[in-house]
């Protein structure tokens, strides 16, 4: 008995759909990006150095707002450069949002520091800022490491 042409056509479409569906791997997120990883590592190192200096020499004029301007500028240049790069990567909304929040926090820390009458961050400022930035970088690296592990597994 020969199958009805419509039935044959439907079976073919179904098989093709299964083939197309199963032949491709599902990808919900962008691939791991080495440049983003390295740039964030540099930013994290620079931020950690800044807080270590504050903890080692609290009240030092070397850490006044005016003397910290190159630090803030350096972080902003890096975060905005890597943001532009990430903007060009598909399925990358999470990393873009993370970079925006990091840039915003650099600006907020800058404002806090700028507003200090003596130009110096207090011990409690440093404790709070250090905690916030450490959590932020850790979260970003956790995500980046997971993307890296995923790339290796593929």
């Amino acid at each position, binding site marked *: 008995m020969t199958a009805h042409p419509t039935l044959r056509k439907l079976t073919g479409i179904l098989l093709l759909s299964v083939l197309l569906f199963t032949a491709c791997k599902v990808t919900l997120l962008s691939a791991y990006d080495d440049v983003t990883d390295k740039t964030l590592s540099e930013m994290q190192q620079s931020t950690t150095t800044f807080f270590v200096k504050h903890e080692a020499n609290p009240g030092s004029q070397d850490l006044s707002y005016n003397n910290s301007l190159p630090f803030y500028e350096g972080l902003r240049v890096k975060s905005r450069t890597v943001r532009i790069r990430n903007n060009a990567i598909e399925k990358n909304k999470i990393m873009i949002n*993370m970079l925006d929040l990091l840039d915003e*926090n650099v600006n907020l820390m800058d404002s806090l520091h700028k507003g200090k009458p003596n130009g110096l961050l207090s011990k*409690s400022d440093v404790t709070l800022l250090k905690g*916030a930035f450490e959590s932020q970088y850790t979260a970003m690296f956790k*995500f980046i490491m997971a993307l890296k592990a995923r790339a290796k597994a593929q």
Partner: protein
Amino acid sequence: MSINVSAIAKEMLNAAKPILQNAWKEVKPFAEKESKAFAQNLAMIGKLKLEGKITKEEALLHIQIQKNSFRTVLLAIQGLGLIAVENALNAAIAVIATTVNKAIGWNLL
């Protein structure tokens, strides 16, 4: 060619479930630690303001910084979850491929 749809669905679920369960097990300690730190830092800001050690403007800046930091943590959890979903979907799809190939008797997929 016979394909048992309900059996495939069960196999797909069996393939996906442990991946999603393990993902949450891995993320949970991180989520708990960061939630606690966020709460502690907000409490510290409140205390500093009450004691007059920081101004209202400084307190607001600190709160916004802590909120942005915690939002980044939540984004990371979302990203880790999506990677787990991706792995679960691909494991489930691999089950379909095996079953379909077996059912038709040759490697279509």
